[in-house]
């Protein structure tokens, strides 16, 4: 069996501006056909990494290989030759003056593609991104979603071997963002295209990535399949970033058959854990794994952890509410607005918070 070969590869990659190191990655591989998501907060070095991969910036140290050949530091014609095998989409559509068609055909025009072939390719890609019939529209008249579709079409038109996307949906409203995420996912799958997708949005990362690397201060904090990142975070930072709103310092007081009793702030919790008794660990609980009930309501069911407390804060986030319960340590639960209304929850109401032992994830063994 032939080993899959990375189409893009970086080794000992470091980028610094003066004294400030913004990127320090030992190894990065992008396999052909995969969607690699680079996740991280602002200033974590994600965009710099993308620009280095696209040969728009040179690394301070290290190598970048495209299809097995080292390409960092290439200049002039040689740089253009390699760069033309990739395309980058920025957060803003950055459309050029003119109409949609002018924009989509840009990459083909700089490649001096024959007019007839160019027209065919443009019309094909416009259908692909659902911009059919809008070729003559001036870019100032496009909506945010249409503009980003045009930017996507402009990149896809050149049929890049690797598509690089730098938070392409970050400036769009939520419904448009979701629609475009779905469309891009469909396109990447249908075209079997290799992509590096940079985002700070964990949901977007989970939705699109075959593999995720999480960057913090220019360093890879964790890399793996989405499942690994989202359910087995290796650090408090990763856990916090991928949605573990409840993170506590805990002491394992007893273990039996893989089930551990953990002491958090004087309260006992049950969790699934392989660590030894007496060890200090960090544990995380996703807020969506916590359910709330009014005091005296039906039993806990299979939930191994039942904590009594008082609602100390309610924060609305669209169709869901983020409820903080003082148990007495703060425990955050994510419930629907409808549940909140039916349970008549408000600040000061006494509630029972429940979550299963499997919801308690040990972060730092």
């Amino acid at each position, binding site marked *: 069996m032939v080993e899959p070969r990375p189409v893009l590869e970086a080794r000992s990659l470091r980028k610094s501006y003066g004294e400030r190191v913004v990127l320090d990655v030992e190894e990065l591989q992008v396999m052909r056909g995969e969607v690699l998501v680079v996740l991280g907060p602002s200033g974590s070095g994600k965009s710099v990494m993308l620009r280095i991969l696209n040969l728009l910036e040179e690394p301070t140290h290290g190598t970048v290989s495209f299809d097995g050949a080292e390409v960092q530091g290439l200049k002039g014609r040689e740089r253009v030759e390699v760069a033309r095998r990739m395309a980058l989409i920025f957060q803003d559509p950055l459309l050029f003056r003119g109409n949609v068609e002018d924009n989509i055909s840009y990459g083909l025009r700089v490649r001096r593609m024959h007019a007839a072939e160019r027209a065919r390719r443009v019309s094909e890609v416009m259908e692909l991104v659902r911009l059919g019939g809008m070729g003559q529209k*001036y870019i100032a008249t496009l909506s945010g979603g249409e503009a980003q579709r045009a930017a996507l079409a402009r990149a896809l038109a050149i049929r890049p071997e690797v598509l690089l996307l730098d938070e392409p949906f970050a400036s769009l409203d939520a419904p448009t963002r979701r629609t475009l995420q779905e469309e891009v996912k469909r396109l990447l799958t249908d075209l079997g295209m290799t992509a590096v997708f940079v985002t700070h949005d964990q949901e977007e990362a989970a939705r699109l990535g075959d593999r995720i690397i999480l960057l913090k201060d220019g360093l890879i904090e964790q890399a793996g399949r989405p499942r690994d990142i989202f359910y087995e975070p290796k650090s408090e930072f990763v856990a916090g970033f991928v949605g573990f709103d409840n993170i506590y310092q805990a002491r394992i007081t007893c273990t039996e058959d893989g089930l551990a009793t953990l002491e958090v702030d004087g309260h006992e919790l049950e969790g699934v854990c392989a660590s030894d008794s007496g060890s200090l660990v960090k544990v995380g609980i996703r807020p969506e794994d916590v359910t709330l009930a009014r005091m005296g309501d039906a039993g806990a069911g299979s939930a191994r952890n039942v904590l009594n407390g008082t609602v100390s804060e309610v924060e609305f986030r669209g169709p869901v509410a983020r409820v903080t319960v003082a148990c007495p340590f703060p425990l955050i639960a994510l419930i629907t607005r409808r549940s909140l209304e039916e349970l008549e929850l408000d600040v000061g109401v006494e509630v029972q918070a429940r979550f299963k032992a499997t919801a308690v994830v040990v972060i730092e063994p």
Partner: protein
Amino acid sequence: MESILNAFKEAFWLIVRFDPDFYRIILLTLMVNGIATLIGAVLGIPAGVALAEYRFPGRKPLLVFTHAMMGLPPVVAGVFFVLIFGRSGPLGFMNILYSVTALILVQVVLAVPIIAGFTNASLEDVDPRIGLQARSLGASRLQSTVVKTREARAGLVAAVIAGFGGVVSEVGAIMIVGGNIKGQTRMLTTDIVLNMRVGKSEIALAEGLVLIFIAIIINIFLTRLQAEKGRDVAETKGITGAYING
């Protein structure tokens, strides 16, 4: 008030009676300023683009020099011109002093820094990511510079308008290098000065009105050129994110 009315009447008569001397002056003014602006644009726009887009040794001093030259007193330019092209100057053998060529050359010297300076500012204003975007789509360095220059087109037209404005209102330098010779190097501005000196203020005022008229017509033409691309100006705003959400 009466003198102003008389000036209008005089201007009207000057135009309708097709005085050959007067029309020669208008034609020379249009030709010298037109050619100087054109050459100024041909030299100034690429210079402004290069100063904005490329990093080369001496770029910063050159930029400072360009900005300084934008405010160069025309009389000083005229004096330098005479020193260089005068009979005893290093280029005196060219024998161009007091000729139309001299008028055009000195106007070019005045127009180039203005056009280059404004072009440079317009390009600096374009989102730098536009150039990166072009390069990421396969453009060479030069091709991405063309994209950025196109994005700055409204600013470029403004640069040419400013350049034309600079030369059309000019009097000191062309007086010195042209000598204000009747039928040869006499232009509207220098003739105005002359008429004022000899007390023909009505003719001077009339010529002033004609000059303003010419400036307005040419500016309308250039502004139309800019306005036609006004769509594109809106687009330029669009690219940085000011979209109509729908």
